[in-house]
């Protein structure tokens, strides 16, 4: 990030306990999920989370390409996370980079731990995540979108995977960082939760926190994930809602 003069750093946490966009420390950005946003894919979802806009598509289980990746006893989960060139202020150079490869890998591994892959040996479940507009927390937004898309694709799995980041900015632990808080903050801790078991299947950290802060941050993140979980379930319900039979033919 280079050195930033103290004057340039915005006030990330005001004395009144408010953040730059007026949120409290443990408040999420507005989250809207549309399940089944694409016709072509087996499952899909569009997530608008704060200023993030992320589309996810799922294909499969289907034949594995390339063949040598095929596993005889279970399905493999392949994930491709990509940021559009126009998703950030300064044009993002298109294509694979170290960051997107890392994110693809951790997301695929998170899903491998919840999907019942043994039901579909020698197949592949392909997850595509496209970030159209980025404002911090896109790996979590991508994971949430992909998880809803997997459910929309009818893939058997233990549970949906809500995800959120907890960070530290202005010396304060805060939930669901936005861009400025991420850029000028002291730490970033994204996580993904299996609500059914309470297990975390993705946990990364950048920056520094004390042990006590880490433990508090994990609690905040889990609580945030549980809120996101409800939004995910509601999105799927809306998609498959059954019209009330009483009204007769519409």
């Amino acid at each position: 990030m280079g050195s930033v003069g103290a004057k340039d750093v915005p006030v990330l946490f005001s004395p009144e306990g408010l953040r730059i966009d007026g949120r409290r420390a443990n408040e999420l950005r507005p989250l809207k999920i549309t399940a089944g946003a694409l016709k072509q894919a087996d499952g899909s979802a569009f997530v608008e989370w704060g200023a993030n806009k992320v589309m996810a598509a799922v294909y499969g289980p289907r034949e594995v390409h390339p063949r040598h990746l095929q596993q005889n006893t279970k399905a493999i989960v392949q994930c491709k996370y990509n940021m559009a060139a126009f998703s950030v202020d300064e044009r993002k150079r298109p294509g694979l980079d170290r960051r997107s490869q890392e994110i693809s890998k951790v997301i695929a591994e998170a899903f491998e731990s919840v999907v019942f892959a043994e039901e579909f040996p020698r197949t592949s479940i392909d997850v595509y995540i496209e970030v159209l507009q980025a404002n911090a927390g896109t790996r979590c937004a991508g994971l949430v979108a992909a998880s809803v898309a997997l459910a929309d694709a009818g893939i058997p799995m233990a549970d949906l995977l809500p995800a959120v980041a907890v960070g530290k900015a202005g010396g304060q632990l805060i939930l669901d960082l936005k861009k400025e808080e991420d850029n000028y903050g002291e730490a970033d801790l994204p996580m993904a939760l299996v609500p059914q078991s309470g297990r975390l299947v993705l946990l990364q950290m950048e920056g520094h926190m004390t042990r006590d802060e880490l433990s508090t941050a994990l609690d905040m993140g889990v609580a945030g994930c549980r809120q996101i979980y409800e939004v995910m379930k509601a999105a799927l319900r809306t998609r498959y809602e059954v019209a009330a039979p009483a009204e007769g033919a519409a």
Partner: protein
Amino acid sequence: MKPGPGTYRVGGKIYASVLGLLSPRPPFVQVIPLSGRYIPKPNDVVIGTVTDVQGTFWLLDIGAPRWAPLHMTGTPWQVEIGETEKFLHVGDSVVVRVENLDATGRIGVTMLGEGLGKLEGGSIERISPARVPRVVGRGGSMIQTLTRRTGAQIAVGQNGRIWIDGDPDAIARVREALRMIEDEGQRPGLTEKVDSYLKSTETSDDTGPIEPARESAHRDAPESPYAGPGEFPSERPDADSTDRDEN
């Protein structure tokens, strides 16, 4: 209760593993998926497209998790080894029956049997396999309505592939009707709605006289064709998703 299809058990509780409708079948509890790829069952008649030609078999895309090999001995033709490409090419469509499934997910299909074979002409439309019972309708009522109102020839595969042949206008109307069924498959009175749509788009020359009396038997019945689990499509609108514990 024991965990049936679409569920799993952890620590004495049963959870849904797929998004679907809850359907208790004592002593089992199961969840009927509302979406997803076609999961083959033995004896299903499906429509497939040739994706690869090998020396002794063809590989078919039937919309299932894996491609299904159709062996040359499973056809009504006299095929010599290495001459498979004389009979079917990549892109050809066929009607086949699922014969056997093994633990590795291999799907064996055959073309021997009544109504099976290569499809010539026509066009193929895809719908969600979960909607196939709606397209057929109770006792075939929906499919009868479609053929009678449009004069098109229709073959429905259990895998959600539907072959339509007839004049271009008839094909277009059947397609539109299929989209209606796909979008509104859960609602009652669907056959009626599709019927009135097809009636409104009818042109004078396309079909013969219509006997509405035959159809009225199906009119008021809710649209749940099979005696199978699909019986309760509208009872638990919110019993969805990978989240509920039902025990």
